[in-house]
């Protein structure tokens, strides 16, 4: 699996990432690093703890990272969740869906990266 295919699998924009980072080496480096990013865990923990402020920040960070790496599918769902959580807004109907979507997209993204990682040269 190439990096490009990895992006296609996760619903990201490889070209965009290349445009920003300029080299495949960098893109690959950062894509792999995404697996270690703690933001998602923070998001899940905060939501579970009912800390909406921290959850907002975490979602915001995910959004920022995804923006940088052009993980557009996850970017979109995390952005929607960010807005839902912004300014300590009380839970709105449909928020669960947003959270679930972020979780799904995250899993899909991580899955794609893992698959790529296994096939990538060490």
């Amino acid at each position: 699996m190439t990096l490009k295919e990895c992006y296609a699998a996760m619903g990201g924009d490889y070209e965009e990432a290349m445009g920003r980072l300029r080299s495949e080496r960098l893109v690959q480096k950062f894509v792999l690093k995404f697996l270690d990013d703690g933001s998602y865990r923070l998001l899940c923990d905060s939501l579970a703890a009912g800390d909406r402020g921290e959850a907002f920040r975490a979602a915001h960070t995910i959004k920022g990272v995804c923006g940088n790496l052009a993980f557009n599918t996850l970017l979109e769902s995390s952005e929607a969740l960010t807005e839902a959580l912004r300014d300590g807004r009380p839970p709105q109907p449909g928020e669960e869906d947003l959270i679930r979507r972020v979780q799904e997209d995250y899993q899909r993204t991580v899955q794609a990266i893992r698959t790529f990682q296994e096939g990538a040269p060490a």
Partner: protein
Amino acid sequence: MKNKTTRFLITSLAGVALLCVCVFAFFAIHMSGKSATTINEVGTLYMSSMSQQTSIHFESIINIQMNQLESLINAIPSEAVHSDRELREELISQAKARDFAYLGFCGQDGKLDMLYGSQLTITDPDPFLLSLRDREEKVAIGTNAEGEKVILLGTPSPHPAVSGGGCAALVAGLPVTYISDHLSLEENEERAYSFIIRKDGSFVIRSSDAYRNNYFERVRAIYEDVNGMTPDQYLEELSAAMERNEDYSNEFTVREERYHLYCTRLPRSEWYLITFMPYGTMDSIVRNFSAEWGTLTVLSGAVILAALLLVFYKYYGLTRQQLREVEESRAAAEAARLEAEDAQREAENAQWEAEHANRAKSEFLSNMSHDIRTPMNAIVGMTAIATANIDDKQQVQNCLKKITMSSKHLLGLINDVLDMSKIESGKMTLNMDQVSLQEVVDGIVSICQPQVRAKRQQFDVFIHDISAENVICDSVRLNQVLINLLSNAIKFTPDGGEIHVALYEEDSPRGEDYVRIHVQVKDNGIGMSKEFQKHLFDSFAREDSARVHRTEGTGLGMAITKFIVVDAMGGTIDVKSRQGQGTEFIITLDLEKAAAMEEDMILPSWDMLVVDDDRQLCESTVASLGSIGVKAEWALDGNSALRMINRRHRRGDDYHIILLDWKLPDMDGIAIARRIREEQGNDVPILLISAYDWGEIERDAKDAGITGFIAKPLFRSTLFNSLRQFVETDGEAEETVQTEARRDLTGRQILLAEDNELNWEIASELLGQEGLKLDWAENGQICVEMLAASPVGYYDAVLMDIRMPVMGGYEATQVIRSLEREDKDLPIIAMTADAFAEDVKRSLECGMNAHVAKPIDVREVMRLLDKFIK
């Protein structure tokens, strides 16, 4: 009112004058009538008295003669009876002593027995004899032997001697002239004359000019009119009066002269004295009187009229003055009223302005909400669509693209609103600093390139011999203006259209330290209507027609542009536009020249070739190259360029560097490069000139053997910076892509506050490639601490994430700004995934210099750093 009074005055004046004239005319006419009557009466009176005088005179003459005759008789004593002969002699001697011309006895039969003198004949003896028989003395007329008229005085003879022999009376004769002389019947100084006639009209004593023997005949012959009667009627009347022994008076006209006639009977005779007097005399007297009267009348009339006129004139003057005074007071009242009206109008204006301002504010708000709602709707709608089609990747991507667009638009709108509010509150001030025009133009070109490329528009930038590249200006605002104009041009020019940006320079009227810069942005797009051009610079002005329905914008851009260029920078904006033909904006600014460039821009004396289809660009580029020490030639198309290159190659005198335009008429720059590489190998660096972003052709270009790119516009500094690398590598081709000619920020120390490690790494990696040195602060607190612990001036700038644990970006910025350090005002640029207006606003409010959105755009970050780092 004035007219009314004047009219009344004039009318009454005219009326009074007319009345005067009428009255005096009546007087004059009446008086002249009266004078005619008077003349008549006076005439009659005068004539009668004159006639009486004459008749008395006549009587006295006759009496004298009669007395003479009686005394003659008495002188002869009756007792002394003389012989008839003695008596006769006595009588003759006595008569001659008494100057009688004739003397004789008159018999009962009327026959005269002459004592001396020639034989006389009594003309009409009967009345004479009748009187004598009644023993009355009588006068009669007779004729002598020669036929001459003689006055006969008869007295009944008392003398017995005399009475004997049938003698009736003694008759003495006198020549007619005696009476006429004594009566002075001829014309006197009054031209009155008289004559004596008998009852039958025959003359006793004629007037001198009468040649007929009978007055009646004379009357019939020459009298024209006798007081309206024919001469015969007159004679009848006259005869009747004579019969009645009455005086008679009348008037008649002879030879156009009027005469008065008076007839009276003379005593002791059967004679009538007729006296004539021409009216002329009396007329002249009365006429003199009349004339005097008339003159007096006219004079008095005139005096009265004059007096009246004077009174009226005075009154008129008075009225006029009153009117004037009234008028003046009216004018004063009017002025006061006008003033009051003005004041009211002013008040109304003020009210209107207040209302207008209110309305404008409401309009602004309503426009704003509309303008905000539009992209917001797109975002919400697209989000919904994407959510519904979450598995359709294509669809989702499409939605995201649109959402991104809308968000950017929204951000732009908010920035514009911020600017407008700054402008309106008068808080927009210029941050004057040294600015490189080259960088400004470069900047806007790179920003606009994506849009130009998306619409496949032909985009050209011309720089005409700019000598002063560095000027003093607010680069941010200048950028804003140019971007606004350029993005409008792009927006309103259809796909495939043309957009030209030109920059040229001339001497400024403000002096040697200044330079006048003209920036021309021209397109062949849809243009603007004349009506719209009037409102072009109004807030929220957008041409409202189907053609621009789809085109989006905040509607504030031109208002801001105008404020910046005209009000803040003191420049001008000219617009030329025709619907369907395109629009041209020309901005003219007088800018202060910056101090001379620090670096000495000199390159080795290379031979270079510039290939471009625009002669002007070629010439200007060759001139610019010449000024940095490079000898250059130029060609306008690919084939001639190849010929020139081959010729040099054969001579073994290759060009050191070749600049190729990408788009050429015969073959594009890549094709030429390929040919050069095929024929001559890879020795000569070939740079592609392009105003476009070369991302999409980069691979092709590299494959074709293009060494690098050089961005239009070709400023001196652009050329220098792009070519300098070939000095260092001694002409060897370098693999790095020459992107932009910016100030070199290599080695600058940047502090990056970012809580996410991955984001940090990305940023660090990308910015590190640009030569920056980055330090990582994991949150705002750490950021502040690191900065506070660093030596003053150690960090050149801070890139600040907003959402961080412990301490966010806003707070951190506020803390930094409040530090007591000399470098507390170092540039702080917000970097956040939030592109909302409030974030932008808040970041600026907190004291940050600028705001960039994530995902990180290295170019933009570098541009901002370049701008803010001193």
